[in-house]
């Protein structure tokens, strides 16, 4: 069967290239490595000093820090994202721009005005046979929600409350942690942890079932979550609606990793 053997050759060759790509760094002579490190440190210092003298910006959670050198700016389309490029959304309201720091990010749908999901890594198959998506960093506006007190899905649709944190806390399918103050992109807001936890969802999401063959709880139009989803939510009071930033995964370790890889993206975030 030539396909099988030819594909094998291609993959082994790719594995060799991957291996070779990593080896030279390790095999650099000590002197050369030290010189390279010294040069890199000098360049970094120059960049920091130069950037610091030009401008400053308030970063997530933090004090005044040096702004990095300007990155090339691209409009955001679907596909794999390149590190160190500033991507500017075309459809999302409010418009945002951001930079990713590693090459594991991709996005598929960039045409929605209400939501933008960035995926990190690959999906997987958990030991119970449930398909789990990759880690997600989602930017979205919550305009409408399904009121959990009203049984029928279509009848339960209502305008999102002003107190989103209170609404999440009261939802029977969610376990919500304490809210803490946070500043992202210069906007002060709230951050809290959420765990999706249901035996039967209050409102099963019909799209999730029809398209993905999964059982999800529908919190609002386009916002459906599988049991066990772990999220770190940040709510920023932007106009016209609050911007909700969600870091998602299905395991604690995965969420911690997602928080880690999302941190540079959020640090680089600009709104409007």
């Amino acid at each position, binding site marked *: *069967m*030539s*396909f*099988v053997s*030819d*594909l*094998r050759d*291609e*993959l*082994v*060759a*790719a*594995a*060799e*290239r*991957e*291996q070779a790509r990593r080896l030279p760094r390790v095999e650099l002579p000590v002197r050369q490595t030290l010189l390279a490190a010294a040069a890199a440190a000098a360049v970094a210092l120059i960049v920091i000093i130069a950037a610091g003298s030009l401008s400053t910006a308030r970063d997530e959670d933090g004090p005044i820090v040096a702004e990095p050198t300007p990155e090339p700016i691209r409009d955001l389309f679907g*596909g*794999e994202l390149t590190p160190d490029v500033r991507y500017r959304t075309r459809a999302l309201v409010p418009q945002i721009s951001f930079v990713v720091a590693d090459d594991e990010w*991709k996005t*598929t749908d960039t045409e929605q005005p209400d939501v933008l999901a960035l995926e990190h*890594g*690959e*999906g*997987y*198959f*958990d*030991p*119970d*046979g449930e*398909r*789990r*998506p*990759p880690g997600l960093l989602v930017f979205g506006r919550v305009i409408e929600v399904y009121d959990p007190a009203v049984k029928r899905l279509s009848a339960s649709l209502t305008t999102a409350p002003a107190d989103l944190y209170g609404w999440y806390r009261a939802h029977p399918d969610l376990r919500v942690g304490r809210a803490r103050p946070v500043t992202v992109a210069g906007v002060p807001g709230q951050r809290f942890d959420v765990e999706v936890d249901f035996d039967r969802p209050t409102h099963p999401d019909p799209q999730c*079932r029809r*398209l*993905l*063959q*999964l*059982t999800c709880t529908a919190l609002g139009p386009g916002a459906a979550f599988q049991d066990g989803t772990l999220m770190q939510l940040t709510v920023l009071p932007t106009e016209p609606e609050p911007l909700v930033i969600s870091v998602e995964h299905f395991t604690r370790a995965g969420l911690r990793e997602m928080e880690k890889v999302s941190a540079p993206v959020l640090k680089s975030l600009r709104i409007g």
Partner: protein
Amino acid sequence: MPSDEDLLLSGDPEDFGRFYDRYVDMLLGYFARRIHDPEVAADLTAETFAAALVARRRFRRAKTPAVAWLFGIAQHKLADYRRRGAAEDRMRHRLGVQHVPVGEDDAEMITLLGRDAAWQLIDELPADQRDAVRAHVLEDRTYSDIAVESSTSEAVVRKRVSRGLGALRQRMGARR
């Protein structure tokens, strides 16, 4: 004989080839059974192994068997295919893996693998596990749908699928 996990995490490129040898037929059969198009099954198989090659440094030995991890990637690729209507080639492109054409003989073999591979293994499971795994894994039906049809609870169906997959993993291990 090295385990799947050893082969996956090895620095020797040829070990990835050995890991591929163990599962390529099963993966082709898995996709062929669901897509009924040998060329797409071949594309999805190639993309799944390419994704596994890229992501293997993130594989954690203790968390899940390597074969379950591989099939997790496969299921994700399948869902992507259904959503987009085309098999993506992102990982192959990233690795510089060339498109491998599927000849007539290849297509025939992939079709046969689709008929035989998955069903052979699943047929050997106890009846309740076999039915649950068939319905959920091969036919993509939800736990709740299967529970309604078999007049049992969703938790019982989940347990049957979980046990069935566990037994399959052991069986696949025994055939290495």
